[in-house]
């Protein structure tokens, strides 16, 4: 089993590596085309600004590598900014183009700036089902309303409901907290920082990689 984590100098990748290690999977931090394409699964981590993330992906020619990996149908997962970059574009600091793997855009979490509605959304919060089943996805055995750890001010807004794997409510605003499109997954929360339930999600991703490998 070979899982690669994309190295583009963004974000705390150590915790994802540690989380994989905890469930018994060694991973490689890399931006090398061959290494990535020969992996059984690929993770795009990331925190911080959208444009900075996209610039760094381009700097290493990773956009094309990611596209080629996705075309192999092997599981691919974006976490936090890594999920947002799956979308077509973001409105963070002007319009920036994303990877365009899922139709939709990234918008600012629309909170009114009163004292009860704070942004960034830094909190544990519940994920709930939308219109598609969680069976055979990264959320396979996760109980509904499980708490995950969120840290973000922007959210992905997929155009198609069938790409919304879970939603989360921030005060009265319901946003997309996980996406799925074929072999592409994304979560706005940090499974590697969401305790045991988060580790289960990573385990589910690894299981999907194993299944695909054995096909």
């Amino acid at each position, binding site marked *: 089993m070979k899982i690669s984590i994309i190295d583009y100098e963004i974000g*705390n990748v*150590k*915790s994802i590596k*540690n*989380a994989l*290690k*905890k469930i018994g999977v060694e991973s490689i931090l890399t931006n090398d085309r061959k290494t990535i394409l020969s992996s059984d699964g690929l993770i795009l981590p990331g*925190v*911080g*600004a959208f444009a900075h993330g996209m610039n760094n992906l381009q700097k290493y020619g990773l956009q094309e590598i990611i596209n080629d990996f996705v075309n192999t149908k092997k599981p691919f997962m974006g976490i936090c900014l890594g999920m947002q970059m799956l979308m077509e574009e973001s409105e963070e600091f002007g319009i920036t183009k994303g990877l365009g793997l899922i139709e939709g855009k990234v918008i600012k979490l629309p909170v009114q*700036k*009163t*004292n*009860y*509605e*704070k*942004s*960034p*959304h*830094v*909190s*544990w*919060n519940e994920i709930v089902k939308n219109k598609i089943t969680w069976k055979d996805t990264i959320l396979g055995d996760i109980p509904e309303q499980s*708490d995950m*750890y969120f*840290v*973000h*001010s922007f959210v992905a807004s997929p155009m198609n409901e069938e790409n919304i794997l879970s939603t989360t409510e*921030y*005060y009265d605003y319901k946003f997309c907290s996980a996406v799925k499109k074929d072999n592409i997954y994304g979560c706005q929360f*940090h499974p*590697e*920082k*969401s*305790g*045991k339930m*988060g*580790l289960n999600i990573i385990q589910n991703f690894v299981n999907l990689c194993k299944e695909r490998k054995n096909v």
Partner: protein
Amino acid sequence: MKKIRVTARIDVKNEFVIKGIHLEGLRKVGDPNLLAKKYYEEGIDEIIFMDAVAAYYDRNSLSHIIEKACKEVFIPITVGGGLRTIDDINQALKAGADKVAINTKAIQNPEFIAEASKIFGSQCIVASIVAKKINSNQWEAYIDNGREATGLDIVEWAKRLEGLGAGEIMLTSLDMEGTKKGFDTELYEAVQDVVSIPIIASGGMGNIKHAVELLSNYKIDAIATASVIHYNIDTIKNIKQAFIDNNIKVRM
């Protein structure tokens, strides 16, 4: 409604978890990694490691503790104490921390917060404020882990920190810290309406009632526990159950 975060504040000096009163008279209470792992398994939401003497010696020495903690603890980790340069923050994040808490350097050079939040994102930068009451409804900021007064007014300073780009404020009451006599509720009342970033209340929690009272009446996002859990006064599970019983939302 957002969930309140229950954080464990682990102050470290020379490899040991320590606990003092008013951040002084430090007493050893255990091994930082063992405690972090224990609290993680018991359901704590976040761990805050503070190097208690780092500001004094101008360096943070927690890197190896963070590295070790990150292998067993899969919740957010904040590290603070003696972080003075962008490179220091880089080192802490490389070790595995998710956020850094900055006090002394922010007061010496407020632009450091702006620079750091631009590079690492606001979500990564926790402004740590240590407040000592000087008059009714007036508090002064302290640096060097509560050793030195600065003359800065807390309310003004908190507002300024948000403007500079801090993502959260950890507000420690020097008067209540380590006393187990309860939070300085007036302090949080004074600050809650002037900032719109999350506030972590730290200092004074001696029992569950203290936290319930604070969270039921003030707009606080997270509490820091130390004495209560270090000295087994109560458990994380009981704290959270009491919150639920009092309609305070929390992760179970």
